[in-house]
């Protein structure tokens, strides 16, 4: 039995090497591009808006060995530990949604594709014929014969960086995907179906400077913790409750000489939303310009990415921002736009907080769609 377990461990540790990796990017070939010609763009309406990322503690594995009691203890500890970070991230995403509602984000992305449609219609096999939007909550079906644009917006754990990631795909059974890669034996099933074209574009905003902890900043931090601890009626948590324990833990952390990422996020989030979200709006528009321009470029490019090549510097902007085409790994062929001088490390946690107003909007969309589905 023991050998069986160890063998399984060995097998699992080596399993990743057994499957041949395939690039996520799917380029078009010349015949496919010619068959596509002028093609509509469909922007998938984003519903999450700018989400705030944070790191949720999960100790369930540690407690699993101690049965039900262990599970209950770790679940309670996690609830206390995650309570404040979750509330804090929710507050940031709520504040951001006030200045940057999701409808405005979606309109901005569609507008950049419209501008690209007008500006770059010559010399390319594939051009954009029209730009539409689709709400996937109500029409989740795959879109045929249109370039689908699906964007995701997230603030880093310390709110120093906005990252916009967009997946572009084109699906058309009449122009099927033909894998350009050579496999030993039969191609994996994943290479036999799916979109004819697919790629990912990532935009990393400029990095906001991390605030230095001063006595004044510490006082503001403590005030913020007290403010966040209040319930819906404005009451402070009662001693002995989990909410009180969570607040106490946060206050203890605030007294030390280091700012956690969550604490930094409290202050940097305000930089994004001041002046009615001017900075956020500018970065989102920059991201959309980059994505619209490079989507057209890449759709008209037939080069097959390599898993073991090198990154290519495609563009250097006057402010030092670079656009690179990744040259190795499964994300090979994807495009990344990055600011010039990055000095601090960015993390995106393992959890996203979506603004309450956006959650309500999604519920309303689903509710509105329900009667029409029933009536069919």
């Amino acid at each position: 039995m023991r050998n069986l377990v160890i063998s399984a461990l060995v097998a699992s540790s080596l399993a990743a090497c057994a499957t041949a990796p395939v690039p996520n990017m799917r380029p078009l070939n010349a015949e496919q591009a010619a068959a596509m010609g002028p093609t509509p763009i469909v922007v998938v309406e984003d519903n999450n808006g700018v989400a705030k990322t944070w790191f949720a503690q999960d100790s369930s594995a540690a407690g699993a060995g101690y049965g039900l009691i262990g599970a209950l203890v770790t679940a309670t500890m996690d609830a206390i530990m995650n309570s404040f970070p979750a509330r804090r991230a929710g507050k940031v995403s709520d504040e951001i949604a006030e200045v940057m509602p999701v409808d405005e984000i979606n309109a901005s992305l569609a507008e950049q594709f419209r501008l690209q449609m007008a500006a770059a219609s010559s010399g390319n096999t594939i051009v954009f014929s029209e730009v539409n939007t689709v709400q996937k909550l109500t029409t989740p079906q795959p879109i045929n014969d249109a370039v689908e644009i699906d964007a995701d917006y997230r603030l880093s754990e310390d709110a120093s960086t906005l990252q916009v990631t967009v997946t572009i795909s084109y699906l058309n059974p009449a122009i099927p995907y033909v894998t350009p890669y050579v496999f030993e034996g039969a191609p994996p099933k994943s290479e036999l179906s799916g979109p004819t074209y697919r790629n990912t574009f990532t935009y990393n905003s400029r990095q906001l400077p991390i605030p230095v902890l001063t006595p004044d900043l510490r006082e503001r931090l403590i005030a913020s913790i007290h403010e966040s601890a209040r319930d819906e009626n404005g009451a402070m948590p009662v001693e002995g409750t989990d909410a009180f324990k969570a607040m106490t833990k946060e206050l203890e952390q605030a007294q030390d000489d280091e700012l956690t990422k969550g604490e930094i996020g409290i202050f940097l989030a305000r930089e994004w939303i001041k002046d009615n979200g001017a900075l956020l709006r500018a970065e989102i528009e920059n991201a959309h310009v980059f994505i619209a321009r490079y989507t057209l470029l890449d759709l008209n490019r037939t080069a097959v990415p390599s898993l073991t090549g090198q990154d290519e510097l495609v563009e250097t902007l006057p402010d030092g921002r670079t656009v690179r085409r990744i040259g190795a790994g499964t994300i090979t062929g994807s495009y990344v736009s990055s600011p010039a001088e990055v000095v601090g490390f960015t993390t995106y946690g393992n959890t996203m907080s979506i603004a309450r107003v956006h959650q309500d909007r999604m519920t309303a969309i689903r509710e509105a769609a329900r009667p029409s589905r029933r009536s069919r």
Partner: protein
Amino acid sequence: MSRVARTAGLIALAGLGAGGCMTDHGYVMIGGPEKAYYGYLDTPTADGGHTVRVIRPDPDTAMAYWERRAQELCGGKVKRKIIHTAVRPTVLYEHYGGRPGDFNVEGMVYCESEAAPAAEAVVEAPPAAS
């Protein structure tokens, strides 16, 4: 092979697969003779520079190693540096949660004797929308 020897072998192999390659060898090339997981890696770029990548378990040495390798590649005569990536990706467990991963720094370095990227678009940037 005895059962004990087989078990010991399997345990050693499992250990190698699970964590044997994570030993910190200090300032070394990733891979290299030590098969190092942590360290630096650099490749020449098409425009005459170098891409330098560093993976470290701590942020301070990650930045310091990047700088050190940049200086080495240029013999101390660096013309331009662009650190475009400094991330600490979250490592997700298979079925639950995750943990902060290693520190990754990546950027380009151009030496005084090498061509540096122009301030404007270089390789094949598409036209900007007006």
